[in-house]
C-alpha cells in the first residue's frame, strides 16, 4: 500500500466512516440535500441556528464513500457552535487545504487536517467537499438540492 493511500485513509477518517458523529435527523430546523452525481453520494445536512446566530446543533444523514462520510462527520463536529460567518470561513480554508498543492504547507484546521490527504487525489475532492456545499445550502435555508457538478 502506498504512503499516499495511508495518508488518505488514516485512522481518523476510517473511524469517522465507521462511526459517523451527529449521524441523525434534526427536526424543526433547516436542512438541505447534497448529491454527487459522479459516485451517487447523497447526504442531508440538518441544522438549528440559535438566537445568537450560532449553529446550535448540526447533523447529517445519507450514504456515501468513506471520504464523504468522514468529511461530513468531521464537519458537523467542527462547525457546532460557530457563527454562520465563521462556518463560511472554515469552509473556505478547508477547500483551500484539499485543493492546495500536494506538497504545500497545511493550514491549522484541527481535526479537519485529517482530510489533507485528499490533495493528492483530485478526483476525490468533490467527495470531501460535498458536506460543506450542503451545509452552505442549509445555512441559506435553500431547500433545493445542491450537487457537486
Amino acid at each position, binding site marked *: *500500500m*502506498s504512503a*499516499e*493511500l495511508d495518508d*488518505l*485513509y488514516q485512522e481518523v477518517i*476510517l473511524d469517522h466512516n*465507521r462511526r459517523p458523529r451527529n449521524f441523525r435527523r434534526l427536526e424543526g430546523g433547516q436542512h438541505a440535500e447534497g448529491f454527487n452525481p*459522479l*459516485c*451517487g*453520494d*447523497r447526504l442531508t445536512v440538518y441544522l438549528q441556528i440559535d438566537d445568537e446566530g450560532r449553529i446550535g446543533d448540526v447533523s447529517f444523514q445519507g*450514504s*456515501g*464513500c*468513506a*471520504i464523504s462520510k468522514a468529511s461530513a462527520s468531521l464537519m458537523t463536529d467542527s462547525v457546532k457552535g460557530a457563527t454562520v460567518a465563521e462556518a463560511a470561513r472554515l469552509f473556505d480554508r478547508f477547500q483551500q487545504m484539499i485543493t492546495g498543492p500536494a506538497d504545500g504547507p497545511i493550514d491549522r484546521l484541527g481535526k479537519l487536517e485529517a482530510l489533507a490527504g485528499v490533495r493528492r*487525489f483530485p*478526483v*476525490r475532492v468533490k*467527495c470531501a467537499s460535498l458536506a460543506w456545499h450542503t451545509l452552505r445550502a442549509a445555512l441559506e435555508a435553500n431547500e433545493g438540492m445542491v450537487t457537486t457538478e
Partner: protein
Amino acid sequence: MPAGSPSSAQTFDVARIRRDFPILQRRVHGRPLVYLDNAATTQKPAAVVDRLARYYREENANIHRGVHALSVEATDAYDAARETVRRFLNAGDAREIVFVRGTTEAINLVAATWGRTHLGAGDEVVVTEMEHHSNIVPWQLACQAAGARLRVAPITDAGELRLDAFEQLLCPRTRVVAVNHVSNALGTVNPVKEIARRAHAHGAVVLVDGAQAVAHLPVDVRAIGCDFYAFSGHKVFGPTGVGALWGRAELLDAMPPYQGGGDMIRSVTFERTLYNELPYKFEAGTPNIAGAVGLASALDYVAAIGLDRIAAHEHELTSYGTDALSCIGGLRLTGTAPGKAGILAFVIDDIHPHDIGTILDRAGVAIRAGHHCCQPLMGRLGVPATARASLALYNTREDVDALAAALRDAKAVFA
C-alpha cells in the same frame, strides 16, 4: 475444431495480442497498468493508431465534393469503411449503415426521427430495467413529445430479463422495444432474437443497443431479426467520436432526416429541399472521416482474431474471475446471469465502490466505480453504486489476480 470450443480458447495467444496494444506497456503510479475498464472504453491496437495517422498523413481530404485525387481517395476509404461495418454486422446492404458519433447518437437519431413519425398519444415504448441512460432518456424525450408512455420490463435478482413479464407488457399499442444486447452494468447477454420475435408478433419495431456486444461476441443483425442496431467505435478498439447505426432500409427510407445541412441533400431551393438517398440522408455535414476509417481497421483487427475465439477467451476469464472474487469475504457479485459476458460487477460490505476504485487505482488496476449510467438499475439492485471490472480480449488471469490482490488490500484498509 469448431470456433469457440474450449481448445480454441487454449490456443488464443493473449501475449501476442497484448503486444498489439502499446498502452498496455504503461505504468500507472509506478505499477504495471492492469486495464479492466473496457466497458467504459477499450484500448486501441497499433493498427488503428497507425491507420489514423496514415489517413491524416497521406489521404486527408473532404469526401463527396472534390474532383481531385485526395478527395477521391478519402471518399473511397470512407465508403470502404461502411462496407466493413456492413460485413461486420452481416447487414444486407451498405446503404443501411449510417455513421454517427456513437451509440448515444444512433439511439437519439431513431428516437427523434422514427419517433416523430411513428409515436402518437397513448402509444407505448418498452425498455428494460437494465438499460443504459442512453437507451432510456431519448425514449423519454420521444414519449414526452408524442404523449406516449414508457414501459419498463423487469429483471430477476440475477440480472436476467423476465421474459414472461416482458411479454405481458407487449400490446397493440407497443410501437418500439429498445433493449441492450449486453448489459454494461451486469454483463447479462439478452436473448435479443427471442425479444425481437415476440415484439414483432405485436407489430413493434426493435432497437438493439449493441454498445457492449460488438467487442465480445459475434453479431449478425439479420440472424437477430431486429430493426435497428447501434454501437460505438471506441468500445470495439476503434477511435472515439464514431459509431454506426444499422437500420432496415425500408424503415430508414420512411424516416425524416435527423439533421439538415450539406451532404444530406439532393437539391436545395428556398422553397423545397430534396433529401439525399440512404445513408447520406442521415449524415449531414462533414462526417468523422478519419474516425470511420479507423473504426474499419479496428473491426478488421477483431475479425481477423475471430469473435468466437474472443468470446471463448473472455468466458473462460469471466469464470476464473467469478471464482477468484467469490473467495473474497463480504464481496457480492451484482449480475450473475448464466452465460454472461466479461463484466464482473460487485459490492463489498462496508466499503464504498468509490473507495475501492481509489485503492485499486494506486495498485495500477483501472476499474470503474459508480452507477455506470444505469441509475434505475442501481435502484432495482438496491445499491447506490457498484465497482465494475470489465474484460476484453487482451486481459489475462494475471490481470484478474492483480484485481483480487488489490481488493484484499482494500479490505485490509477497512478491516
